[in-house]
């Protein structure tokens, strides 16, 4: 327990000399015990005072007053690595981390060589390493502070995360500091805080898996430093320094291009061999912003040219088209030979699948951008008129409509006889099947994307840049996940992984129970469409014009396929094909 003060040394009244005053408060009540502690403190202060090293702050004085002891030391202008780490948006450059590590090896070597007894630092971690204004490292917070933390029945020893296994048994050697240095470098290079992970779990988070820019050589040195068994580690801090020097690039060599890119590097050969193969493409007269649907070998897709197209899924051969009086931006639904879809002409259209002929239409008072849900012989669809409509699927007659106060562009979903959907005002509704409001949740901004449900939990994203998990019965928020920016994408779920896109260009993978981010993948522009999973791949379009294929467990890029315009809608997977539209007016079919 204690604090560090920034103080001014009044021995020098005419100049401003800054010092750091470290205060340590004894919690021990027994006077004899306290006496021992103070003696230990003074002994260690004396040792510290004799240490002369550019990476160790100088000690000017120490004293004890009542239950408090004070150490007066050099004031260091700068920031500790923990602060630098949390301020920096991306990974530190390898060369930077290696430079710091080399200096740390120097100072550890110096301490370990101390005579008569080696000094073990015991607590190497980012928050104990200051980077001064000249970009050199300073070790702060020597073990001296710990003499005041009396062992409480051995509940906790050492700092969780960075300490080696033997330190948990009360043993510390120079090799313990080597381990902690390796752990610190691991943290700096991966941005994964080991205090948030189980101890000794570094090999479950290989550095290059998280940050592919790190060289194989450096990863190997760090892996040797963080070996579980001390005998398998780099034998000393100086040996570690030597190994690190060997990984550094020869002087004058240009920086490796991989160090400046943020994207995982893909080998050219892989890209060529694994890319999605174009099966066919079909040209409409205007942009395609909706999502196609495949049924019995026929692909249905709406276009901004006002038409709904029926194409042979295998060949892309035109079968028929049906004209509405407005753009079609949603996904059609198919049930018992009839295709249902909304158009910006304000109508819900029911078309006979075989012929493309009209069965009935149903008018709302606003453009329809929501996709229909078919259940219980009814079509449920939202409209920009601010109502949720329930329409009899046979007759096209309205059963009810419920005023929800603002346009509904999300697709409703039904579960346990309740209907769920979001609105442009940010309300998320639960209605019963008679149209009565059961509960309502308010997001801060629009809920344009649609929800999915599993295990009585609703998942959806909002324009308020939050991804929500809601209890289906009460509407209570179980968890929230902050996205970089708004999301209008509809998530998909496989195993415990949730996938969604956001307009910060990112495709996210989130663990559904704990709300922890599993991975993220950055495209070059907004991700407004929804990802789909087929086999072990995730497919998702981006406004940068590419359809991306990622390994869904890791977020690694498998290949990407270029179209001539932004992709705003979602792909559809069917058999061995992926179908999607682009604003370049084309429908694409890729065989996978």
């Amino acid at each position, binding site marked *: 327990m204690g604090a560090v003060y920034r103080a001014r040394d009044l021995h020098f009244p005419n100049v401003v000399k800054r010092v750091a005053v470290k205060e340590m408060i004894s919690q021990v009540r027994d006077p004899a015990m306290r006496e021992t502690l103070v003696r230990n403190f003074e002994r260690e202060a004396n040792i510290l005072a004799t240490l002369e090293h550019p990476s160790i702050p100088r000690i000017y004085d120490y004293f004890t007053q009542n239950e408090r002891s004070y150490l007066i030391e050099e004031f260091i202008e700068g920031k500790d690595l923990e602060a630098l780490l949390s301020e920096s948006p991306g990974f530190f450059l390898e060369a930077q981390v290696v430079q710091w590590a080399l200096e740390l090896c120097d100072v550890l070597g110096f301490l370990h060589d101390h005579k008569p007894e080696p000094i073990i630092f015991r607590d190497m971690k980012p928050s104990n390493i200051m980077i001064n204004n000249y970009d050199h490292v300073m070790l702060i917070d020597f073990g001296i502070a710990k003499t005041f933390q*009396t062992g*409480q029945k051995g*509940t*906790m*020893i050492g*700092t*969780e995360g960075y300490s080696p*296994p033997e330190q948990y*048994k009360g043993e510390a050697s120079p090799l313990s500091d080597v381990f902690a240095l390796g752990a610190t470098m691991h943290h700096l290079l991966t941005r994964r805080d080991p*205090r*948030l992970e*189980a101890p*000794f779990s570094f090999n479950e988070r290989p550095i290059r898996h998280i940050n592919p820019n790190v060289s194989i050589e450096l990863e190997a040195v760090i892996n040797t430093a963080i070996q*579980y068994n001390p005998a398998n580690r780099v034998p000393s801090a100086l040996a570690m320094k030597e190994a690190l020097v060997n990984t550094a690039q020869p002087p004058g060599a240009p920086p490796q291009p991989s160090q400046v890119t943020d994207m995982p590097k893909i080998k050219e050969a892989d890209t060529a061999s694994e890319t999605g193969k174009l099966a066919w493409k079909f040209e409409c007269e205007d942009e395609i912003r909706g999502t196609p649907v*495949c049924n019995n070998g026929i692909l249905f897709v709406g276009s901004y040219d006002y038409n709904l197209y029926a194409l042979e899924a295998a060949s892309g051969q035109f079968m028929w088209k049906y004209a509405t009086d407005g753009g079609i931006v949603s996904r059609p*639904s*198919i*049930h018992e030979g009839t295709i249902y879809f909304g158009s910006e002409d304000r109508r819900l259209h029911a078309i006979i699948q075989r012929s493309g002929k009209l069965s009935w239409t149903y008018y709302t008072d606003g453009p329809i951008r929501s996709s229909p849900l078919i259940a*219980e*012989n*009814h079509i449920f669809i939202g409209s920009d008129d601010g109502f949720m409509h329930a329409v*009899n699927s046979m*007759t096209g007659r*309205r*059963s*009810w409509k419920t005023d929800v106060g603002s346009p509904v562009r999300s697709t409703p979903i*039904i*579960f346990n*006889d309740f209907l769920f959907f979001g609105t442009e005002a940010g309300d998320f509704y639960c209605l019963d099947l*008679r149209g009565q409001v*059961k509960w309502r*949740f308010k997001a801060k901004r629009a809920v344009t994307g649609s929800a*999915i*449900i*599993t*295990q*009585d939990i609703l998942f959806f994203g909002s324009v308020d840049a939050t991804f929500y*998990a809601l*209890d289906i*019965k*009460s*509407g*209570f*928020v*179980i*968890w*929230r996940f902050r996205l970089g920016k708004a999301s209008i994408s509809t998530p*998909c*779920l496989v195993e415990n992984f949730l996938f969604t896109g956001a307009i910060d260009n990112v495709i996210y993978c989130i663990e*559904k*129970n*704990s*709300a922890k981010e599993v991975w993220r993948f950055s495209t070059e522009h907004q991700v407004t469409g929804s990802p*789909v*999973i*087929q086999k072990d791949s995730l497919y998702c379009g981006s406004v940068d014009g590419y359809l991306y294929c990622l390994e869904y467990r890791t977020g690694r890029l498998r290949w990407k396929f270029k179209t001539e315009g932004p992709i705003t809608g979602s*792909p*559809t*997977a*069917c058999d061995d094909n992926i179908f999607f539209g682009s604003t370049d007016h084309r429908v694409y079919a890729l065989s996978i």
Partner: protein
Amino acid sequence: MKGFFKKLFGGTSAEKTIPTEIESLGTKAKKASEGVETEPIVTAPLSSEVFVRTENAYYPPQFTFGCAQSNGKQRDHNEDALFSLSTILASDNTNIPFGLFIVADGMGGHQHGEVASSVAIRAMASHVIRKLFVPMYSTNRETPDESLQEILQNGVLEAHQDILKEAAGGGTTLTTALIVGSQLMISHVGDSRAYAIYPDGRIHVITRDHSLVKRLEELGQITSSEAATHPQRNVLYRALGQGEPFEPDVSTYPLPHNGHLLLCSDGLWGVISENDIIEIIRSSTNLQDACHQMVEAANKAGGPDNITVILVRTPE
């Protein structure tokens, strides 16, 4: 019926991307059709009978529980603490049963252990009550401004801060089960445990022990029998009131329907086996009785540590 839903989604990507949802939709619909009505619904307007289905369960659903605590045979004082709360508000169409169950196992010399566990339990319980319980049952039925997981997370941090203030040097485990409706949320630090027990007698540990020995066992460095007798089996790498700020394990789990939820300190799980636990639950007449029998069994086996048990019965 399943075919109907298959058609409903048109055999499109929806079917492949959200299999869990389709599955549960399918089975739910099947159940409903077996039980209540078989006539297809054809005409509008929708009549109220059509969509209101009865469930063959006790109504209203509720969480009943028992609990028990003992010093054990080898300790002269108790460093464990427990809290339990189960409420029900059944009215018109809102009916969300609420349960909050907490176990803490204190550690550290002097009186710090028992103070730490008690401080932690108070901090967590009062935090959840203030942030969730009160708004939930207020007349204007406010929704909490934090998510349920955030409430638990902040409760843990508050407990951590309170221990630093009121029981400096002490530490404690803290395992909290919050049940709202059918959602089970658990926040967990240390080596107390939560178990899910299913109607068919299966028992699963939900929590992950933050103990050094458990970790060494996970890494294959020692065997589970070595772990059971390891001299450092009480060493935790994560505990409240100790170390730097950290993130507690907070996660959501499906509630075992028509089964049990068991929360206990290592004075129970470290002493009697999972089979013993199942046997006792099976043979006991009620939850209270089951808890006392578990404590008895642990004491009979030597009672080396304080024992705390909460057993919750979950509705269908």
